[in-house]
């Protein structure tokens, strides 16, 4: 299962956002039990906010509940959350179950 955060960030703040994901984000999420999967961005030179997609993985919602508990009890998580909130314009979070396309 993947947790996918897709956020919009102004071009001048992309580097800061990625740094937060790469250092406190990876430490906090990893210590809580989530695995980093990927991070991807759209082009920063097309005159619009940059989309950043960050993926974390875990087994299922039972494991996510445990991760969530660990996060809530970790003071670093609250600081991390405030920092990413200050850097993004907007965004979404969705949970995806991995699947394969069916073929005719």
């Amino acid at each position: 299962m993947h947790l996918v955060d897709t956020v919009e960030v102004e071009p001048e703040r992309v580097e800061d956002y990625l740094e937060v994901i790469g250092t406190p984000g990876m430490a906090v999420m990893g210590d809580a039990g989530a695995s980093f999967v990927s991070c991807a961005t759209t082009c920063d030179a097309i005159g619009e906010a940059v989309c950043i997609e960050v993926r974390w993985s875990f087994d299922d919602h039972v494991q996510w509940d445990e991760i969530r508990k660990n996060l809530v009890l970790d003071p670093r998580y609250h600081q991390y959350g405030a920092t990413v909130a200050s850097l993004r314009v907007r965004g979404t979070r969705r949970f995806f179950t991995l699947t394969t396309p069916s073929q005719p």
Partner: protein
Amino acid sequence: MLRRFEVYALRPDAPADAVVGLEEACRRCGRFIPEVLDSAVGTNLSDAPVQLVWEHGYASPEAYRRYMVHPYHAAVIDRYLLPDAPERIVIDGPLGAGLYGYRCDTPSYRMSSGVRRLVLLHLDNRSTETDVARLAETLEEAPTDVGGMAVSIVAANSMGSAWFDGVTPLMGPPRWTHIWEQGFSSLEALEDYRHGDSSVAAVERGGWDRQLGGIVKRSAELFYEVSRDTEETSGHE
């Protein structure tokens, strides 16, 4: 049973449609997670700096655990709440962790409509069980003196620290050690109580000081008109 309240302080710039989204997500939770009972929301009308209250219950800790691991909880409700969630619309609550609740034998909190009032209590940690029982007995007898008060329950705030499984405390004692849950037929009935001549109303007006054993050291109140899911079919009175 477990009785549970989540109390939210909203971001001042929270989009109106997102606030409605959170309200609806909470109100309709029982449609998706049948273990969530008596789900209702309300907009806090007291001076306390919190805006939204979600009240609900569970038949057992096992039922609560099913709520905790349900996809609707993670994907829909938490969308608005978790600190790193991009659609978060709440802020950290000035009343302390915004989760309160207690264990009970029966859903005696139930009322089909009206006004819910929560009085959050911090009792002196030197209080004896007898002191607390005496306080609870006095407060729970209030409806006999107060016409429009339909519900009056006093209980230890066990959910404040046992939020993960409903049983095991994960943190130290909560800021609010006890809850006094009340139900009134209307806002007018609540106001009649406040200004009325019942002994309990007099204690509240006096700020609890040195009354009922003097064990209430701090209090805060929330009250709201109860808004239920219109499709809910469970057997309320």
